[in-house]
């Protein structure tokens, strides 16, 4: 008998974030009024966060396949073949809304969620990154949010035991009311031991593992699918609390259980907890599933079916196990001190049945919960194109040394050391390129010994560019990740995307989304970097102000020999500095204009993907062949900032000899033309490299030599490396200590 004590009013439906036409869809599907538990289940399955109802149409157009792709989007994380029977598993996911409301816990649970996605597939996490975006530094909430989010990311990852090797931190007023916390995790597994969520077999035990279920996070996913207003702080109770120790136990117990052969299917309980995980396991396996909530371990007595189905308590898993191995499985979980309960069985009815205290609280068609979720083709408008800024009309600095120091000491270009020193980036002992360079590099041992491979990791997007031109900005995000990987000698093999946008019900926001995805897709195709996993976060708005469109990219590259890499630091006196790529002095949307003059003007730099490919291949091959002693991609702040970064990283100065310029000097030094790198090589090697570049059609020019203790461009600029470092390192600690 279906139990329903509460009348379903239009107000109740609205409170569940369901539109009247969506509710009508439910009535049509099940042919009766839903129970409260059922309404909760529908709201969990059909909110934007879980159903991708506004984005699905456009996500389908992204390139997700490739020779190396073993598993693309749709599972907990993407899986990519890296040879030797090994595969890398990775994904990036947002925890924006919770982090704004409760920065520490929002960030910890974001990190916890993404780590769980990775080890649910059977992989041991080997690297984490995070892309963080905050409001302007002077905004009253920013300091508090930065402090809490960074502590939370570190607090979870450090205890769990994964090295946090990279990421991004940006400040912009458009994130004043809505920060972004995008967490990336990657893990390693044997390609023939991938675990999936698809249930198999009728009458199989469905087992609940991990922490107990509490009343935390009920409707978390629904919160993440709505805009913020001034009362958002009242949503604090919907934020969950992370327990990295429990996650560490869950990791070890899950991997041990998988190795025992007892696991048929596994799904972590993330957004919308028990509901989403159970429905997904059944629906994917073309099976029904019956849950008995009396068996669910709970943190407090008296929890209702509704609460249990919607709780987002952390560090929980659902598994389907081989019945004859139940005991063995339970022993493993007891060893790790975790809860283990058989909470249901698979059935052949294709129904999702939830029982509590002898009553049937829900009885729904399991496949329709996912398959029949609404899908919208939201109206969108083509974003307006901005005109191209003539560099000659932009202001030149009065003092180049001061301009460089001001840029290096600006919130967006200053050193992130204050952040990444709070993250354990060395644990596991495999970190070969540490934070602060273009991309992190992590060693991967081959299963049968031999020289170790490497994986490169980077996070990129320039939201200012995407705002100014979503299509080019989308391309640029991929191109920059491509460059960062090439610069460390890694072949880019795949990406994950974390698409953060405003309210999709506004046609101009939807226009940003559509065009940015077009740009991402085009670049991924051109550079052979399929998108294997991702996450969409919409409704990032507060009081009608949307964030900058931020399709954050997490990219992974492969190295055959992990020792064949270089850093960004100048390595040896007299090394020749070579600029790779063409410089037209593109000033539109440059960091120079934004950080020094507060201007966000003009079209962003266009990205020529064939040039990106050619230049990137050339640089990567030079790195791998051991021909260059340092390599750095050019991005925010252009050539001069890149040179300063190389000087600071290597503790060596440089004398720059300007070539004949047909662009204004400041545009040459600060322009953000794409597809460019600076590499250094011994004088003899540099000459050969420049000849080889010419043969390959790659522009390459010697622009100076490493040496001394200052960066010198006579007669325009002389700054000591110490002064560069002082300004570069000062901003973050001063800001955070409130000085």
């Amino acid at each position: 008998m279906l139990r329903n004590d509460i009348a379903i009013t239009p107000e109740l439906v609205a409170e569940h974030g369901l539109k009247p036409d969506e509710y009508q869809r439910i009535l049509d599907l099940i042919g009766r009024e839903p129970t409260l538990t059922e309404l909760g289940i529908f709201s969990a399955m059909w909110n934007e966060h879980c159903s991708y109802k506004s984005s699905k149409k456009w996500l389908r157009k992204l390139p997700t396949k490739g020779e190396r792709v073993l598993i693309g989007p749709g599972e907990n994380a993407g899986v990519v073949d890296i040879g030797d029977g090994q595969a890398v598993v990775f994904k990036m996911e947002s925890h924006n809304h919770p982090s704004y409301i409760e920065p520490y816990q929002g960030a910890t649970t974001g990190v916890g969620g993404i780590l769980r996605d990775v080890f649910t597939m059977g992989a041991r996490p080997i690297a984490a990154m995070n892309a963080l975006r905050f409001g302007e530094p002077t905004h009253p909430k920013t300091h508090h949010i930065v402090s809490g989010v960074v502590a939370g990311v570190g607090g979870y990852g450090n205890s769990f035991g994964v090295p946090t090797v990279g990421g991004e931190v940006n400040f912009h007023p458009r994130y004043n009311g809505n920060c972004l916390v995008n967490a990336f995790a990657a893990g390693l597994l044997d390609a023939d031991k991938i675990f999936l969520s698809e249930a198999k077999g009728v009458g199989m035990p469905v087992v609940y593992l991990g922490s107990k279920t509490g009343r935390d996070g009920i409707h978390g996913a629904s919160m993440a699918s709505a805009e913020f207003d001034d009362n958002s702080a009242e949503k604090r109770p919907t934020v969950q609390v992370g327990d990295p120790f429990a996650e560490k136990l869950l990791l070890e117990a899950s991997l041990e259980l998988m190795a025992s052969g007892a696991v048929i299917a596994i799904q972590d309980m993330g957004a919308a907890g028990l509901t989403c995980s159970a429905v997904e396991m059944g629906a994917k396996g073309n099976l029904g599933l019956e849950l008995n909530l009396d068996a669910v371990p709970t943190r407090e007595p008296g929890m209702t079916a509704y609460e249990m189905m919607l709780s987002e308590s952390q560090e929980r898993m659902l598994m389907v196990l081989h019945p004859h191995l139940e005991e063995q499985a339970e022993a493993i979980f007891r060893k790790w001190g975790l809860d283990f309960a058989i909470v249901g069985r698979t059935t052949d009815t294709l129904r999702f049945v939830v029982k509590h205290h002898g009553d049937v609280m829900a009885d729904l068609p399991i496949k329709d919960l996912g398959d029949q979720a609404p899908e919208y083709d939201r109206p969108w408008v083509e974003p307006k194109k901005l005109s191209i800024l003539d560099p000659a009309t932009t202001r030149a600095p009065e003092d180049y040394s001061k301009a460089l120091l001001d840029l290096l000491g600006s919130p967006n270009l200053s050193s992130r050391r204050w952040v990444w020193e709070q993250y354990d980036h060395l644990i596991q002992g495999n970190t070969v390129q540490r934070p602060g360079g273009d991309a992190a590099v992590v060693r991967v041992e081959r299963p049968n010994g031999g020289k170790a491979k490497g994986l490169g990791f980077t996070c990129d997007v320039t939201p200012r560019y995407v705002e100014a031109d979503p299509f080019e900005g989308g391309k640029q995000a991929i191109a920059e990740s491509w460059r960062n990987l090439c610069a460390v000698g890694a072949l880019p093999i795949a990406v994950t995307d974390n698409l953060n946008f405003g309210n999709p019900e506004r046609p101009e926001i939807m226009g940003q989304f559509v065009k940015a995805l077009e740009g991402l897709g085009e670049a991924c195709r051109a550079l052979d970097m399929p998108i294997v996993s991702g996450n969409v976060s919409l409704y990032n708005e507060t009081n009608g102000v949307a964030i900058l469109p931020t399709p954050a990219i997490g990219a992974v590259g492969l190295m055959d020999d992990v020792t064949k890499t270089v850093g960004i630091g100048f390595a040896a006196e007299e090394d020749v500095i070579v600029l790779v790529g063409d410089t037209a002095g593109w000033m539109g949307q440059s960091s120079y204009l934004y950080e020094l003059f507060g201007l966000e003007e003009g079209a962003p730099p266009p990205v020529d993907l064939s040039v990106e490919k050619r230049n990137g291949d050339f640089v990567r091959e030079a790195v791998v062949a051991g021909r260059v002693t340092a390599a750095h991609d050019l991005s925010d702040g252009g050539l001069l900032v890149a040179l300063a970064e190389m000087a600071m990283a290597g503790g060596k100065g440089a004398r720059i000899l300007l070539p004949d310029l047909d662009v204004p000097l400041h545009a040459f030094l600060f322009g953000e033309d794409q597809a460019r790198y600076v590499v250094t090589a011994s004088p003899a090697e540099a000459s050969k490299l420049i000849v080889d570049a010419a043969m390959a059609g790659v522009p390459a020019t010697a622009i100076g030599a490493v040496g001394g203790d200052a960066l010198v461009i006579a007669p325009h600029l002389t700054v000591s490396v110490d002064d560069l470092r002082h300004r570069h390192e000062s901003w973050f600690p001063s800001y955070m200590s409130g000085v």
Partner: protein
Amino acid sequence: MKSAVLVFPGINRERDLARAFEVVSGVKSHMVWHTETELPDVDVVAIPGGFSYGDYLRCGAIAARSPIIDAVRRHAERGGWVLGICNGFQIVTEIGLLPGALMRNASLKFMCKEVNLRVDNATTAFTSAYAPGQVIRCPVAHGEGNYFADPETLARLEGEGRVVFRYCDEKGELTEAANVNGSINAIAGIVNERGNVLGMMPHPENLIEALQGGIDGRGLFESLAKVA
């Protein structure tokens, strides 16, 4: 060198430590689960870094009361080598094998960075491969590594040359800036009276191979390999 690496459920640098033992000595470590009550026949018992039981209470407080600890104590009493790194240092102070305690870092923040250590006693079984006064690079990764001991204990430690490592600058000078966590007398590592128990906050096990950025951490394991 036969070694045992203790594994508490929330410990997380046990593989790093076991790898260091294996790279230097060629012998695999025994991994010993915290609920065991006996140790295998080993020369060195190593307690790695991590968050033994989550460390939501005082770091190492619960680990110090776990079943394996009695065996560790007996091993130390027999004169066996005990190496406690990071959480391991916190645990051996909780057990009482070493004096003093580790408090929150003076910055109140978790800190992961490479620091310089001065080897102030190169005569111990843990440091004989280093030169006296040698400055080595070594990573730290902790939130509670601020060593403290009362004046009497401190005077004894200093008087008996039991301060083995100190945080210093590149030249070996003890500066406020170099003292990463605010430890009293810049103490990074100490030994017991008998010299068979070493506790230290930094992680020599993460600087063993060139591709980790240096090999300054090897000396500690090479020293042990000479005696064990």
